[in-house]
């Protein structure tokens, strides 16, 4: 059985947010919900300022605290070590949100894509209303509905449960890469099997010092970060008082 992991090369990542948008489209994410996300940090004082960008997603931890704490096994491990979620078992207790140190699970507070049920036309008689557009393209929920995640999951999760990144198992089972990896224009995201010594992820982990988020908590995340985009050079010195 594979042991899936992701390596994110921060030198290649341009911070374009394509992974975020791609994930939203692939998994029909409602307004305000992001499975693929980012963390940014600004350091230094003007004019010596630097902006750090780090794409994030579920870390699919080996010791996943969300899985340990979920009372009904709605959060569980599936093939490949993927941390999956079953909305039919989720009781909405949000204990996973307490336990996840990365802020990954999202609770669906409102009916998903409810803004697409609006029947107001922007220009009366000239434009579609959101609902008319959804009906016109014969979609479910929103106009760009993707039915693919329905295989083994729910294409759109109902109100009152949590949802999170699941490494696109509907694609992985078909031999395809997770969609955030697929759409990354700079090949910054690399997906593969940690147990395969010849996999690309192992090649990169063997080549560069990798970093994981909050390793001190013992969650053993399976998203690794390597390198950093930094074209800077500086004049060597020991500083001064």
């Amino acid at each position, binding site marked *: 059985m594979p042991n899936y992991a992701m390596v994110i090369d921060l030198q290649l990542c341009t911070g374009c947010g394509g992974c975020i948008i791609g994930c939203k489209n692939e998994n029909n994410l409602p307004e305000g919900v*992001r499975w693929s*996300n*980012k*963390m*940014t940090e600004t350091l230094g004082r003007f004019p010596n300022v630097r902006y750090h960008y780090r794409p*994030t997603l579920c870390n699919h931890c080996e010791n996943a*605290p969300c899985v*340990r*704490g*979920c*009372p*009904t*096994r*709605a959060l569980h491990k599936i093939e490949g070590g993927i941390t999956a979620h079953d909305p*039919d*078992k*989720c*009781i*909405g*207790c*949000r*204990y996973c*949100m*307490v*336990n*996840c*140190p*990365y*802020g*990954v*699970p*999202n*609770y*669906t*507070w*409102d*009916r998903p894509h409810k803004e697409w049920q609006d029947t107001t036309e922007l220009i009366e008689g000239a434009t579609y209303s959101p609902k008319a557009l959804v009906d016109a393209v014969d979609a479910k929920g929103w106009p760009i509905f993707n039915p693919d995640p329905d295989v083994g999951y729910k294409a759109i999760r*109902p*109100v*009152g*449960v949590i949802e999170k990144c699941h490494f696109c198992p509907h694609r992985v089972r078909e031999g395809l890469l997770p969609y955030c990896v697929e759409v990354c224009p700079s090949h910054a995201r690399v997906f593969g099997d940690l147990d395969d010594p010849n996999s690309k992820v192992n090649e990169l982990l063997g080549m560069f010092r990798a970093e994981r*988020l909050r390793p001190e*908590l*013992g969650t053993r995340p399976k998203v690794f970060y390597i390198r950093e985009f930094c074209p800077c050079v500086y004049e060597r010195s020991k500083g001064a008082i």
Partner: protein
Amino acid sequence: MSILWFALLGVGVLIGLFTALTVVVTGLGVYNANDVTFWVLPMAGYLFFALTAAGLTLLSSLPSVFGMKQYYPMAKRASLLAGATLLVGVMCKALDLGPITTLFNTVHLVISPNLSSPIWWMAILYGFYFTFVAVKFYFIHNNKWHSMGGKTFAVLALLLMFMAYTALSIVFGIADARPGFFGHFTAIYFAVTALTSGMAVLVLASHAHFAFSGGMPGEQVPVYDNLSKLFAVLIGAALFVFILRAVIGFTSLQGAFDGFRYIAATGIYRIEMWVGLIIPFIMMIIPVVRRSRLGLILASSFVLVGMFFGRLVMLLGAQIQPMGNLAETRPAFVTYFPSMYEFGIILLALSLSLLIYSIGVKYLRLDATPE
């Protein structure tokens, strides 16, 4: 007065039921909660009522389980109050889960249990705990205090209280990702404050009843005098764990306690400290106030208000600082004010528990003792 009181409670229950129905139909979108502050006022209500029930269960067990026979006159009252507060506490938690579709999923607590989850243990143990408290009251009400069933369920209710309470403490204790919940120190904090709020409810309910029913029976005066002194000691103990928590929160170098430090500068923390602890403690160590009915009613009311705010302080302290990628596009600390639906849930819980108690006072002879 009686009709007016019941009418008032009826209005509270009706407004609360409308709120609960809205939540069950539409989901938690009507709360001012989000992915950063996700456990808010209804959860605080759950903690407040469930922990108060734990304190009341222990107090009601003093004569029947621990042999302190002088406390029999308050045992039945405490037992009913434990059942009422536990019922509304569990209701608050249920109304903090989601719409009806989510509530149906709770069947998976039975068919897909996760024994490593403290939330699972909490849910199951609270289910048994409530059942045992209800059966215990049934035996007491039928004057079978010392029957095999009466004794068995008195012990079982106490045992399940300890177990359910432990599970609840572990829910917060093992949350490594959020040290702002104060880890396993929360178990000590919960134990002391649960007993204090349980005692406050008992003191308030008893003395309010005596105030409206023409006074306390003479033979019960020493019992309630003792309880008043015990109440003073408990407020002192609660003040001690409050200070201990403040020391931990203020001296820790961990950034995870910034949320607590932020909350400590707000009004809700001051209400917990002044209204819930310092003022009632000062009141209760003054003998003349401790012996006056008005003093006891005011001090116990203050404690309960403070304890309720304390539950919210505890929840928000660990949440208002956005974590991980949730910090993106958000300020260092988020703001929160409850929606009217959240207030509605608390109104429902309060009205319903008062209604149950009032019915008990009117029809169930709550000062009955074993013959």
